[in-house]
């Protein structure tokens, strides 16, 4: 297997390109793909299945070459990475911008995760989207006369978008520089737009799609700023070193500095632009560029001491994180994700819970080497707030998909919190486990919705009798997300997937707390409380859906277990949700999840980090694994989960407490939660209205000011021309000419009186004029000679 290592990039590239091929084939040839494009589903599924096979094969190659657990971070070994160059987009004065790849264990794990879940969901969709094979009557898209809309099915279009999504997501995972990341980042956003707005006729769907895209673009704006700061100062956007050209990571955490974080020279230089200019202008002798550069290098330690460039690195980090805030639906840009549930349920499972929204977490994990402690604190705060907001709204939501959506937001908050507290592996681990059980939960909810034709939980109940498989697998999902597990059996903790990752997160936050009591206490309280809330709302959902008596008899009667092609993916994902994180695989020589992730730990993320501007210390991750931390945290976590489940059971299973009563007694709070903390209303009033008002101002300015000015100038020109016509031409020049003509005429008539016909008078005139002329001429000659 090891000999195949050089082909790994090509294998993964093929895995990326296969779904693209399927997309193109469906886009251009839908009408030849069987009746109503039935074959499109098969085509897309085959493509993604092939990608899965390739991914797992690549994983085999990778972990044979670099056994998981072989890299010893205690000895500060650098993780194995393969980087390389795909093709060049442009050459700019010696630097290249292009398509690169960056492969490490994280890439491999993400590849396996994305392709496996995508395959399950493709299979599931072939059945779930079955209605689209025939003409569809869309009950939710009403025509003006109140009729439901009839339209042809769009089975092929669905799989077309799904294929494009798989391509973009895999490309994002493989990408080796920020520009390429940004490219695929936008492309997954586009796919999300297509898929949320799949029911194009529904105004709610297209509005939700636009909202998702635009809110994501706000994040992308931040990401662009971060990229600018990096590009402007470092002259490269590559993650790793390619062909001796230093990438960003090695400039920030250089080998010579023992991989500790240091503001790179380029950033110091860019931040010191003014000082450099002063050097050049005030030097006594004119300096050549080389001399100037030498002087700058001499000054460098002084500037570095003054923390020049530190702010730039913060901007870069915050910018990149801003992109992640948008994509991962973190506070304050979390508002798009619940609306995204307008899309078909398989889409919610794949795009809006398991993979795309996790891309933000992935990018934070990927960019971890360049994040300063100050930035990470912001990450942790955003995560913490998001985790609480998401969990609190999920408590009261009645739409089954929205409960899951808010739960997703909350879990993404957990991941960010973990990353922000220095728990790199904890955050990534939760990303993987969450993807497994959340896609399971969404597919389960899809199965329910498919059966009862509604999203509203108040109209469900008792469904476990009709749909045992769905109910069972969803119970597994709920237990997994609640993080049920036993802290220690045979020296090893044993539990469902969520247990391991959540435990890691809490441990890390606990360790963080011992270094930074103020922040840490708050974070730990939020994380532990959030764990309780998670268990509560998940079991609330499960009880409301499957337990008790049916609340809508008609819907209950129609309900049925889903066909096998939908149940099998559920079972597969349930198995994953149970055992994906088990450490026991290492007994069979297989790479376990935690060790695989551990192998990808970026160089340098093995020591405490200290902030230079704020007093903040991020503990390195192994500090959370000491017995002093694990035993209390394990108990707290289990206690929180059990308490949440018990509370849910009290309300919804045993009916000891009445939820109506509670909501009435806490009415203002309940209402605020029900209205989602009024985020939508506030954003609508402030940002959307504000922007539209500005837009109308601009438009009015054009019409009322600039255009009037221009028209006025034109009118002024015309007026002036008229005026000149009237005054100058008619009265001035014409007047002069006319006056002259008149005078000539008058002179002529005056002279006419002289013509009397009398000879004596004529002779008299001749004599007089001759004398006059003689006198005139003689005076003239006299004057000339004299």
């Amino acid at each position: 297997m090891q000999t195949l290592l050089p082909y790994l990039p090509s294998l993964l590239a093929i895995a990326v390109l296969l779904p693209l091929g399927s997309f193109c084939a469906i886009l251009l040839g839908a009408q030849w793909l069987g009746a109503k494009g039935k074959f499109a589903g098969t085509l897309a599924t085959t493509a993604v299945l092939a990608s899965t096979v390739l991914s797992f094969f690549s994983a085999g190659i990778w972990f044979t070459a670099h056994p998981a657990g072989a890299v010893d971070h205690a000895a500060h070994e650098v993780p194995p990475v393969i980087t390389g160059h795909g093709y060049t987009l442009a050459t700019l004065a010696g630097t290249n911008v292009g398509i690169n790849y960056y492969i490490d264990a994280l890439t491999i794990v993400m590849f396996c995760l994305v392709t496996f879940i995508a395959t399950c969901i493709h299979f599931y969709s072939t059945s779930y989207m079955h209605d689209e094979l025939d003409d569809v009557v869309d009950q939710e898209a009403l025509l003006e006369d109140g009729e439901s809309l009839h339209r042809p099915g769009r089975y092929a279009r669905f799989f077309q978008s799904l294929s494009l999504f798989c391509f973009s997501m895999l490309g994002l995972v493989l990408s080796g520089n920020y520009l390429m990341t940004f490219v695929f980042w936008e492309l997954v956003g586009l796919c999300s737009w297509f898929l949320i707005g799949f029911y194009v006729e529904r105004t709610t769907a297209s509005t939700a799609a636009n909202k998702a895209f635009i809110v994501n673009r706000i994040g992308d704006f931040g990401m662009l700023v971060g990229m600018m700061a990096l590009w402007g100062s470092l002259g490269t956007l590559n993650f790793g070193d390619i062909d001796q050209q230093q990438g960003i990571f090695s400039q920030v955490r250089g080998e010579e500095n023992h991989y500790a974080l240091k503001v790179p020279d380029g950033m110091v230089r860019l931040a010191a632009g003014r000082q450099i200019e002063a050097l050049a202008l005030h030097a006594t002798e004119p300096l050549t560029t080389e001399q100037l550069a030498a002087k700058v290098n001499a000054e460098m330690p002084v500037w570095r001491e003054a923390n020049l460039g530190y702010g730039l690195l913060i901007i870069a980090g915050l910018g990149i994180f801003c992109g992640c805030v948008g994509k991962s639906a973190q506070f304050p840009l979390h508002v798009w994700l619940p609306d995204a549930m307008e899309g078909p349920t398989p889409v919610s499972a794949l795009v809006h819970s398991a993979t795309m929204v996790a891309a933000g977490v992935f990018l934070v994990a990927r960019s971890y080497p360049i994040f300063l402690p100050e930035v990470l604190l912001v990450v942790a705060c955003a995560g913490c707030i998001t985790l609480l907001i998401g969990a609190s709204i999920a408590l009261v939501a009645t739409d089954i998909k929205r409960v899951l959506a808010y739960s997703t937001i909350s879990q993404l908050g957990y991941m960010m919190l973990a990353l922000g507290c220095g728990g790199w592996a904890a955050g990534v681990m939760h990303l993987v486990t969450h993807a497994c059980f959340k896609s399971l939960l969404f597919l389960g909810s899809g199965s329910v919705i498919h059966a009862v034709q509604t999203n509203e939980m108040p109209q469900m109940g008792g469904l476990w009798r009709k749909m045992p498989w769905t109910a069972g697998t969803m119970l597994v999902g709920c237990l997994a997300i609640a993080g049920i597990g036993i802290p220690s059996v045979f020296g090893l903790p044993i539990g469902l997937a969520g247990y391991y990752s959540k435990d890691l997160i809490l441990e890390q936050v606990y360790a963080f707390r011992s270094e930074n009591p103020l922040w840490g206490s708050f974070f730990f309280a939020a994380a532990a409380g959030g764990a309780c809330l998670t268990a509560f709302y998940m079991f609330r959902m499960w009880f409301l859906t499957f337990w008790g008596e049916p609340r809508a008899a008609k819907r209950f009667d129609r309900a049925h277990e889903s066909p096998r092609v939908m149940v099998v993916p559920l079972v597969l994902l349930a198995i994953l949700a149970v055992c994906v994180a088990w450490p026991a695989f290492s007994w069979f020589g297989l790479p376990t999840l935690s060790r695989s992730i551990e192998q990808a730990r970026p160089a340098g993320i093995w020591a405490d980090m200290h902030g230079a501007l704020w007093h903040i210390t991020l503990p390195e991750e192994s500090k959370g694994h000491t017995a002093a931390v694990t035993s209390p945290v394990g108990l707290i976590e289990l206690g929180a989960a059990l308490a949440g489940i018990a509370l849910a059971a009290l309300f919804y299973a045993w009916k000891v407490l009445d939820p109506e009563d509670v909501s009435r007694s806490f009415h203002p709070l309940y209402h605020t939660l029900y209205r989602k903390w009024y985020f939508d209303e506030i954003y609508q009033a402030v940002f959307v209205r504000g922007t539209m008002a500005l837009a109308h101002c601009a438009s009015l300015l054009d019409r009322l000011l600039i255009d009037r000015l221009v028209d006025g100038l034109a009118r002024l020109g015309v007026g002036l021309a008229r005026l000149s016509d009237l005054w100058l031409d008619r009265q001035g020049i014409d007047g002069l000419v006319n006056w002259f003509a008149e005078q000539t005429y008058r002179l002529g008539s005056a002279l006419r009186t002289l013509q009397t016909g009398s000879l004596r008078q004529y002779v008299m005139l001749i004599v007089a004029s001759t004398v006059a002329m003689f006198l005139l001429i003689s005076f003239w000659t006299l004057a000339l000679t004299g």
Partner: protein
Amino acid sequence: MDNLALYIVTSLIFMPVVGAIVLLFLPAENKSLLRWFTLAITLLVLLPLLGIAMPGADWLSFQVGDGGVQHVVQLSWIPSFDIQFFLGIDGISFPLLMLTAVISLLAMGASWTIDQYVKSYCVLYLLLLAGMIGVFLSLDFFLFYVFWEVMLLPMYFLIGVWGGPRRQYAAIKFFLYTLVGSVLMLIALLMLYFNSDLRKLSPQQLTASYVAAWDNGGNLLSAEKYKQQLEVSEHAVHTFNILALQQLGQNSDAFDQRLLYGKSVQWWAFVLLFVGFAIKVPSVPLHTWLPDAHVEAPTPISMILAGLLLKMGGYGIIRICYPICPDAGYDLAWLVCSIGVISMVYGALAALAQSDFKRMVAYSSVSHMGYVVLGLGVWSATAGNLFDPTAWNMGVKGALFQMIGHGISSAGMFFMVGVVYDRVHHRDLNQFGGLYGKMPVYTAMAMLLFFAGLGLPGLCGFIGEVFVVLSAWNFSPTLAAIAAAVVILTAGYILWAIQRVYLGPQYHGPHEEALTEINRREMAVAIPLCVLAIVLGVFPAIVFRYMDKTVDRQVTDLTRWTEEVKLPRLRAAEAEADQEVAANEP
């Protein structure tokens, strides 16, 4: 063979003129003959350019390794003022020439809907084409000016005769705006001409800038011989040669005399030229001719207007303003960049407020062309950046790519608006909806082109936008951040328009029965645009390969100029200021 190449280059201009003359003798009733003939002529312009674009034939191919001008055609035209018929191609003009030929061909394909006065339309169309090709080809400033004006008149008639209800107003507005720009350019042109002096150039510089003189027998003089002739001349020898003016601007003090208010000749020339070109781009606040002209012009003319005419402004800035007046360019870079950013923001905001489909697309052009101005202006190769040309290089390349990308996407967007306008005869964004169901193929293509305008990766609008924005940081982080924020507004107006026009349950406007799927002729226009949008987005190198060397060279020259000429000046000014401070201290 060399001569053949030169004839081919010359024919690019004269082919449409000859075509227009032939058209005069064709029967006016036979509309389809007239259209096909015009289409054939535009094709005859495109084919030689394709030949030049292809590698392989050494005598004809564009040499991508050569940063200078190629295929130079040089004839004396008005010897008493040394005005020459001087054409040439380089990496800046060639992509724009290709774009001109392609868009002209496609816009002619879109002209089948013109049914009145077809003959005059075709004649004017070809004259317009000749003017546009001439602008991009000419290297003599006077010739450039002549073509610039030649372009103006047919455009006036094309809007004024074949336009919509307010065509008279739009046409005269377009004409006056552009005329003001031309007059400013003319003043600057004469200022530069009368201050130029060929005696200040060395023989190498004369050779490099193709300064040509002929002896009495009509033979071309060598540079040394001509230099000897110049040496003995008592009076300044003026020139219109753009390349020579560039050499003079960068290597001599020819344009540095004080003129008015303590500013130099080149400062004023730069301002006049920039205003002239900014009208064409158009930049806020000189942009209001554009929405009116676009709304009133017929579809193919809108395509030409947005796809090509606007590019002349950008071309003028990069070809004339910066290289000829570098000192003013350096001092005014902040102004140029600010205008670019203001245009981007303002255009996007105004687009958001429009309810007329075509007006919205027109304002999106204002916004997108702002990127071009910003990219051309980001002169970041300063002392503070240790004269690192990378960012500026990226900005200029991004701006040039943006011109090409916008040429494709805006022409496409206008065409797509035209397709639906031809069917339902209205453009009110609030009276559409549901076209997805009625015209799926059309909708797919329209979405693709609108997404190209939105700057989606993988399509032609992305590369230009992202390069320009990335490059702006080293010039001014604030401007760069504002520029980056425009991506949000762009997404807003484009997606909102898509939602209102293409999505939704049903069409609610007049003439619903007329909404039929896009026909074959329209497909023939739309498909090349879509394909180009994708190909340029995925393989931008096919454009960059032509412009790389020329842009590298120009940026390197100007960086060298900053280092060797501007820095000492700044030092001197600084020293003077220091002395003054020292003198004023008690």
